[in-house]
């Protein structure tokens, strides 16, 4: 199947102002990212906080404007369209917020929140809208009685279901899931993740799955993109990346995840320090300040993402 979303050399940046309101620099949150998402796939995007994974999702969804580069969604370049023109195309591309509890209007009953997208994006009559709301509500596994409740009256797991139901209303083909399980307990997380997989089958969805939880991404995604300071440093089939990561950052990231019943990470974890300030990135490879293998070459030239023998792409001078 073809590509549903293609990012080419995408840049998103935010101005930095000093105390007197003068612009002193740019925070390059997304710094030249090229990605392809295949229709029907789940692409996981992982990285530490501040690596730009949420900004990518929001740029795709049209919440931030890209500074350069293109976003092709279902064959159309949506990065250069005006918001009004973009809206018609973006109906099929929905963004699921990190915290649905905060993104639902606390004054609105859930039924009203759910039918709002239908009123905006479709010409359905009131009765048709009600029928559709009930249908989707059942699909995400919530009882009909919830339509008359307010967001604060339901649990965190149920709020996620409502957030998802609201997105499914307009029959999207691509859903950007931004940290969809953060803040949930494992018992609820497992149920929500299974729901994502069921809904993907049922509605033919493609997911861009943004998460810092590597175990969850491994379970959910076919392909994975590892980000560090605004750039993709490794990209490939999830299982291959997890079994044999090629970029030293990916190796450290995977080594940091506790595996219950396995080797204890905290006995010999090697990665020191924290990511550098994204406003003043190191020259050359951004990871060199924490990398064991860093040499003079890493400071001089920035490694490009190149395809290795097993099909994985990695941005490291020494990857093979």
């Amino acid at each position: 199947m073809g590509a549903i979303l293609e990012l080419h050399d995408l840049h998103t940046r935010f101005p930095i102002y000093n105390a007197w309101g003068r612009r002193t620099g740019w925070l390059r949150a997304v710094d030249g990212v090229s990605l392809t998402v295949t229709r029907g796939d789940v692409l996981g995007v992982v990285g530490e906080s501040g690596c730009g994974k949420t900004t990518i999702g929001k740029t795709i969804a049209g919440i931030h404007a890209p500074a350069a580069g293109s976003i092709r969604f279902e064959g159309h370049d949506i990065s250069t369209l005006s918001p009004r023109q973009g809206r018609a195309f973006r109906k099929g591309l929905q963004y699921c917020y990190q915290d649905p509890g905060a993104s639902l209007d606390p004054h609105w009953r859930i039924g009203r929140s759910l039918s709002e997208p239908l009123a905006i994006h479709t010409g359905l009559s009131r009765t048709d809208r009600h029928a559709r709301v009930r249908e989707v509500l059942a699909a995400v596994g919530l009882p009909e009685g919830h339509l008359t409740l307010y967001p604060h009256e339901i649990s965190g797991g149920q709020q996620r279901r409502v957030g998802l139901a609201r997105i499914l209303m307009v029959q999207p083909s691509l859903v950007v899931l931004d940290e969809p399980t953060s803040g949930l307990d494992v018992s609820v997380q497992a149920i929500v993740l299974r729901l994502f997989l069921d809904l993907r089958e049922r509605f033919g969805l493609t997911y861009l799955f943004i998460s810092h939880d590597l175990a969850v991404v491994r379970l959910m995604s076919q392909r994975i993109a590892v980000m560090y300071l605004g750039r993709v440093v490794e990209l490939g089939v999830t299982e291959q990346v997890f079994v044999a990561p090629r970029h030293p950052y990916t190796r450290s990231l995977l080594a940091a995840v506790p595996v219950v019943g396995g080797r204890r990470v905290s006995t010999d974890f090697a990665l020191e320090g924290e990511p550098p300030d994204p406003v003043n990135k190191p020259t050359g490879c951004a990871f060199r300040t924490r990398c064991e293998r860093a040499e003079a070459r890493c400071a001089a030239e920035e490694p490009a993402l190149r395809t290795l023998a097993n099909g994985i792409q990695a941005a490291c001078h020494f990857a093979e």
Partner: protein
Amino acid sequence: MHPDLLSVQDVSVSFSTEGGTAHVLDAVSLTLRLGEIMGLVGESGCGKTTLARTILGALPPNARVRGAAISFDGRDLLTIDPREAASEIRGRAITFVPQDPFSAFNPLFTVGDQIFELMRWKSPDRRPFEAGYNRARRRSDRDRALTLLRRVQLPDPERLLKKYPHELSGGQRQRLMIAMALLPEPRLVIADEPTTALDVTIQAQILMLLRQLAVERGVSVLLTTHDLGTAWEICDRVTVMYAGQTLETAPIDAFFQAPALPYTRLLLDSLPSGEAPLRGIPGEVPSLVSAPSGCRFHPRCPSASEVCRVSRPPLSEPGPGHWVRCHHGLVG
């Protein structure tokens, strides 16, 4: 076998709220040995933080505590003179590492100011009821602080003392929090979800540090977490709580390899792993205002029977040091 440092016996805590009385802890028992790291795990709202605060004596005023005893180092914290608790126990013999290193500091004072404010009252050199803070003590406290800041791998401690909290990253603030919790030379550190707000790479660094320091200084740690991976990393024993009850306590290997409690098994099955299909726990955590009778987990438990609804399960010991409260507790 190490002697017990802390022993909580049948302690109940209730809060009077507008909706009725919430029984947040129901006859909870827990022991902590000298020098061990005990993990207190459970889902949100199970009472982990309330138990931690009860031990610390830092509950809000609408809380009502009943129970046999909380004995700590030979003293009963339930009946101790409040002034003694404030000066000798809280922040001194028992210290606290909060969940969120972002809101735990006062943004208007430098790191150094906040360390000296703490040490003025809680320094191990302070004589009982000493009100002043003389230069000699200040100097020795400063040396002690700098040594510890270096030990937790904070760069350039001298300059750090002059910085404000917002100039530090999350990982640095949590290192600083751990250093400050250890400065009064406590016997017990209560760490409430110390790595929840941090990235995995930073989490691994912090957990490693916490474990090393606990071993080095012979400090016991009570670590609350909802993340079983964190518990696996550094704990010696684990206690599981559900809806305000402590249901299982086991040495770390037994806990993960042979859990006796159905709830523990379900929690472990909920972890995303490569092989097994995902299983969650159906249903919701019950309201603590009208908690279920008997075993509080029975409405969601796959092996529940009539007896679970009627009576609270007795304590049984399926293995050495492994205690469980379940009518159907399975061995092995």
